[in-house]
């Protein structure tokens, strides 16, 4: 009895200190001056632009990295080839490298003096200090999540169900859609949640490549930092709260895919 409640107390205290109290403080501080300043902060044209940019980046990055992650997971689990260990390490690279360094390498390659920089600028599509660079930085930072979540699930389900589907006449694409995809669905859902969280929350890499031009290349995350440094705390807290709400909505949407209890 004591052990059971003791463990709960430890877990709850831990969560409270790390999560519940800080997030609660954000909510409290956001509304500390009533609703009017929050509304002003929300409807500020620059804030709306930042929200739009954050969503835009997430909407481009999350599907691309999901597709990439599922494909890579299939390759890693179902194919044998030389250099597999190296590829596995490469996929994990974004976890190992500091995001700020990622930003700098992007500038080295695509920046004004970089390898391809001039080419893209001449075409009228600058990469650095522009949306494409921020998308690239975010893609890199959130690359491994779907792959790493799906790989163990694929390993666990094995290939027998797929072989059974083949003997029953299903072609490769039918087997994938009807058997493999539903079986790895929950892994994909976790991967998408993590990718989304990282995509809307990425700071370091995006800060380096964006130039943080207010109203143009400023995401919500960058705005939190900017407004905080400008002592406009209500604006900073409001932006932070927006990020939290996006995260919660993602979690809620993904929970709609929750597998049935009887599994």
């Amino acid at each position, binding site marked *: 009895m004591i052990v059971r409640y003791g463990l709960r107390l430890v877990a709850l205290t831990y969560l409270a200190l790390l999560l519940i109290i800080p997030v609660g403080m954000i909510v409290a501080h956001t509304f500390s001056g009533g609703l009017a300043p929050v509304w002003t902060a929300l409807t500020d044209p620059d804030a709306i632009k930042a929200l739009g940019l954050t969503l835009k980046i997430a909407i481009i990055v999350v599907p691309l990295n999901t597709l990439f992650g599922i494909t890579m997971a299939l390759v890693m689990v179902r194919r044998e080839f030389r250099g597999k260990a190296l590829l596995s390490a490469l996929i994990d690279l974004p976890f190992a490298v500091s995001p700020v360094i990622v930003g700098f390498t992007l500038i080295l390659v695509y920046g004004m003096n970089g390898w391809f920089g001039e080419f893209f600028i001449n075409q009228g599509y600058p990469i650095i200090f522009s949306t494409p660079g921020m998308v690239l930085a975010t893609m890199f930072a959130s690359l491994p999540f779907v792959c790493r979540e799906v790989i163990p699930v694929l390993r666990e389900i094995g290939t027998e*169900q797929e*072989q*059974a*589907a*083949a*003997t*029953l006449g299903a*072609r490769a694409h039918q087997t994938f859609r*009807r058997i493999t995809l539903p079986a790895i669905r929950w892994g994909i859902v976790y991967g998408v949640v993590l990718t989304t969280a990282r995509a809307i929350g990425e700071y370091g890499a995006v800060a380096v490549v964006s130039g943080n031009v207010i109203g143009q290349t400023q995401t919500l995350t960058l705005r939190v930092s900017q407004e905080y440094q400008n002592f406009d705390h209500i604006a900073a807290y409001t932006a932070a709260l927006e990020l939290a709400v996006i995260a919660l909505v993602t979690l809620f949407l993904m929970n709609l895919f929750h597998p049935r209890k009887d*599994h």
Partner: protein
Amino acid sequence: MAITVRNVNKRFGDFVALDDVSLDVPAGSLTALLGPSGSGKSTLLRVIAGLEKADQGDVFIGGAEATKLPPQRRDIGFVFQHYAAFKHMTVAKNVAFGLEIRKRRKDEVKRRVAELLDLVQLDGFGDRYPSQLSGGQRQRMALARALAVEPEVLLLDEPFGALDAKVRSELRAWLRRLHDEMHVTTVFVTHDQEEAMEVSDTIVLMDHGRIVQEGRPQDLYDHPETEFVMRFMGQVNRIGDVYVRPHDVEIRLEPNGTTEAAVVERVLHMGHHIRVDLTVNGGDPVSAQLTRDEAERLGLEPGRPVFVRPAKARTFAGEPEAEAVS
């Protein structure tokens, strides 16, 4: 439909899984691929199904070349040892899978699924998920799923291997009855010689990637061509150079010209028969099987000196010649 396998070879790295295997399975028969683990029996079944590609050799199903056909186009049903149930689908959806892939009409699918669930005694279980079924029920569901598309050939890979003894023996009898009703050409893999003898018309015994003997169950039991076959098909004693089954050991109280001296070590009551463990010529352990009447008549008890002779025995001229040459 008949199955023909011609000179099939298959390696996994350095391991030779199938070594020049040829086999004819007549249409409508029930054949057991029997052998110890690593003998190549499962690989042979998977080559027939198209789930493994042979390195060399050909497979014909119903007289048509199938060597290069993918499993989808071989018109087979396959049952896996661990059921391979589609976990996210209900039992009815599992059974309907092959029919839905073939785009059959909805009412036809529904009717056929109901028929099959009835056949495998799972009527009323259609809305459950595989995780809510017992092992035996899951395997019956897998069988219904394989039979739904009316395959020409039914292939089963250790279908009862993961089930407990009682369910296993029920399903064996049930598979035999099912085959007698449907007459679909059936090949099943097993490592259990009793299972092979109980269910099949023909046993194909494999060892080290080769077929060592094939024939009716009683032929393999009574006329084994090698020591391996004799040992694999049932218990066996070796007295000097001769091999004798426990039920062919004759025990006498008086010597005659052909008997050897023995001492009773243990007398075990096995239910319908008595097992007597003896030591022959002061060394070789021999196990004999007697009826209760015989044992009572002889009054056997531990320590008692007796005389034994093999009523029926086999000798094997050393190792097979092919091996001696190579």
